[in-house]
């Protein structure tokens, strides 16, 4: 009997091991074949490559991504211009892991975390972009952002992935990126209270109390809710940015913003507001969907909001329901030290990152696709569609969307998404492009809020990607530290009195000491120095 079991297990083992060995030929940058066309640094290769009917498979690590290809305005044009068919595959992290461990990679891969283990180990599975471009499509160097490529360069000196919505220092300085966080208040309430000043703790509390008396049906103050895995909603670093809490101390070392005095003073104020019944307990148990529904119904008097872009649908619904109840951005809580808001937006790391794998069937077409989407053609196409079909250029040379396109955006968002897909093909999108190159009527729901953020954005590139690498002991400590901070912060806002508030804070500081926070801090400092080097600061 035992023999049988052993025999069976060895068969199973054999099947597994042989099943795991990778298949398919790997391409390496040294043995790329010659380009099938004449390469020219001033002409995009897609214009000279007459190879027909290339097919690429593109894995997107987002189950919600629309896999349709060739049916909407954007992908139809893409297909025509590039003679390219794309099969999209979507999935979640477990699908991605299966792809990697199976070794049978698709041609292109888009992931959401440029700091994940997969991204850091890109040399084992992806092709370096600059070298690929030199070989097949040097025009790429004219359209790709140098800063972004440098930022994504790995230790071996190569850059493998290119992100969407990567904002450079120039973008910040040009002031074309819309901010995404603000203190917003319902316009009718704000006016009924006589447009109060909310900048100091006393004025903040008094105004909220007046609001509670005059409008008993609304929750006077709310914020984006907490997540269980250490996400503290909008009241963490988003609020710290609003108060202009510095990101580094005088010596340029990592600064624990959570323990900053001016920030904690405001958390004490929120605690007082909670005790007075101005913040609801539900704020801590509601998930994002419920939070957004409450915004739609105007159930919050004022909100410290983050992610205005994601919230714009709800804000739009709210305005459509009752235009008087529109939320507007006002200055709100101010730092007692006089610091100005230093709002943050996506930095160089951007959002999604797209790679060309070393199993790619047609590396020439793959890099052409990158170049195309990054060039003006691709940017106009993915933002405004096709000239004459969905937009026209006006006398200022700006893109203006057709009336029926705008109308469908408001009346039938689903159909709009399906037939135009504008803004939905975001793999190489840029935040400022629509604003810089188009003149279209802004949505009344977010227009005022985004205008308020103007001039308040400051890059935080220095503290981007400074957490310990996944899978290390320090990363594990940080998970525990972050979830403890979320619990502590929520408990501090709900504290019964000052004594409990101080006790909770003290306990958190002790937790930091006993959970190896010094090591996390050391890694962050080290990575900040690396960032300085990369950014030339």
């Amino acid at each position, binding site marked *: 009997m035992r023999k049988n079991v052993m025999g069976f297990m060895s068969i199973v083992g054999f099947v597994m091991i042989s099943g795991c*060995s990778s298949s398919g030929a790997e391409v390496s940058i040294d043995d790329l074949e010659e380009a099938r066309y004449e390469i020219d640094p001033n002409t995009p290769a897609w214009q000279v490559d007459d190879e027909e009917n290339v097919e690429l498979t593109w894995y997107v690590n987002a189950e919600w991504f629309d896999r349709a290809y060739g049916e909407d305005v954007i992908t139809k044009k893409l297909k025509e211009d590039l003679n390219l068919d794309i099969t999209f595959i979507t999935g979640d992290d477990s699908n991605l892991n299966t792809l990697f461990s199976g*070794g049978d990679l698709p041609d292109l891969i888009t992931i959401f975390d440029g700091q994940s283990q997969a991204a850091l180990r890109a040399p084992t599975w992806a092709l370096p972009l600059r070298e690929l471009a030199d070989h097949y499509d040097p025009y790429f160097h004219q359209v790709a952002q140098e800063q972004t490529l440098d930022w994504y360069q790995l230790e071996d000196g190569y850059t493998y992935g290119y992100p969407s919505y990567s904002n450079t220092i120039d973008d910040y300085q040009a002031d074309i990126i819309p901010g995404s966080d603000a203190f917003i208040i319902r316009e009718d309430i704000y006016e009924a209270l006589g447009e109060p000043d909310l900048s100091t703790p006393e004025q903040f509390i008094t105004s909220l109390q007046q609001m509670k008396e005059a409008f008993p049906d609304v929750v006077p103050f709310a914020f984006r809710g*907490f997540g*269980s895995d250490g996400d503290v909603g909008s009241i963490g670093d988003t609020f710290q940015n609003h108060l202009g809490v510095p990101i580094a101390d005088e010596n340029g070392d990592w600064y624990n913003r959570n323990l900053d005095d001016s920030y904690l003073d405001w958390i004490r104020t929120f605690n007082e507001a909670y005790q007075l019944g101005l913040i609801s307990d539900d704020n801590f148990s509601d998930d994002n969907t419920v939070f957004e529904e409450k915004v739609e119904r105007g159930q919050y008097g004022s909100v410290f909001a983050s992610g205005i872009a994601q919230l714009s649908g709800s804000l739009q619904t709210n305005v459509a329901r009752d235009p008087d109840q529109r939320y507007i951005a006002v200055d709100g809580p101010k730092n007692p030290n006089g610091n100005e808001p230093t709002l943050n937006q996506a930095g160089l790391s951007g959002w999604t990152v797209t790679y060309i794998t070393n199993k790619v069937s047609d590396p020439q077409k793959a890099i052409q696709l990158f170049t195309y989407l990054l060039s003006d053609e691709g940017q106009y196409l993915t933002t405004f569609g096709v000239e004459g079909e969905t937009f026209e250029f006006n006398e200022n040379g700006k893109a203006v969307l057709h009336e029926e396109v705008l109308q469908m955006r408001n009346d039938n968002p689903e159909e709009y998404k399906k037939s135009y897909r504008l803004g939905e093909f975001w793999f190489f999108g840029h935040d400022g492009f629509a604003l810089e190159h188009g003149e279209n009527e802004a949505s009344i729901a977010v227009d005022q809020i985004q205008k308020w953020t103007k001039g308040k954005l400051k890059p935080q590139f220095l503290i981007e990607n400074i957490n310990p690498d*996944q899978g290390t002991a320090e990363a*594990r400590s940080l998970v*525990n530290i972050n979830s403890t901070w979320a619990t502590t912060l929520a408990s501090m806002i709900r504290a019964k009195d000052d004594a409990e508030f101080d006790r909770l804070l003290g306990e958190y500081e002790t937790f930091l000491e006993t959970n190896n926070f010094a090591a996390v801090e050391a890694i962050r400092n080290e990575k900040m120095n690396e960032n300085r080097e990369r950014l030339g600061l």
Partner: protein
Amino acid sequence: MKPNFLKRYKQQLPLQLMVIPGVIFMIIFTYIPIYGIVVAFKSFSVTDTISSAPWVGLNNFKIAFSDPFFWSAVRNTLAISFLKLLIGFTAPILLAILIFELKAGLFKRSVQTISYLPHFLSWIVVGGMLTSWLSTTGLLNSFLMTIGILDEPRNFLVEAQSYWMIAVLSDVWKSVGWGTIIYLATMASIDPTYYEAAKIDGATKLQQIWHITLPLMSFIIALMFVLAVGGLLGSNLDQTLVLINPLNASRAEVIDSYVYKIGLVQGDFSYATAVGLAISIISLILVIITHKITKKLNNRSIF
């Protein structure tokens, strides 16, 4: 021995053939993946293949056992699961007996259908319903304030000390009706002449239940009990993920959600596999012990 075995196999050939697809299915989907367990003894990252990752021995287990958050998750899992076993295991038996004793008719059918319904809702839906019912403006608070038990609305989901009870009661509410099905089926197979004889002897309803229904169901109850014990250390994942928030996390984090957080969210696969493996071994031991005990009590073996 051998000729005998072949002879018997030949006699049962049609039945044996029927089993083969099931066996193949089991081999492919449950035995072959066992190989993945070696990840627990390696330092694995997504771009490794299982065979290429370096060995680290028992290191992942050492880390798990020295992590206070792991032990807090173990404590919560045990507490919630034991409470579920205590209440959630007996409730369907009681409900089944009550339904069984009802006269057949519209009322009986309605009770059955209504009690099954929650089983068909996913935890995502139930979680949303619970968050709204338990919120300060929710159903429960309105009710408690109307009858004067509470003066001020309270959000029960942000109070850590209430979490275990919320988890257990919501699970019982969701599963009790569905759990009665197997017991009702067993009761339906009891020969009615037993009850007629008992009635003639003057047995009361309670005596009939005690001396006829329960003894004849004991085998099924034992089977269900062993299965329930096997699940003691797992299966709270969906519920936890929809109900957890930072304020109740100290009581709500269970092993499965912890493994999910470390493994999938943080990408620490080796560590998560080690925790999962440790839990599976403990569950297996629990099943064996319970099986031994029920066998002693029942004098019949399930396996």
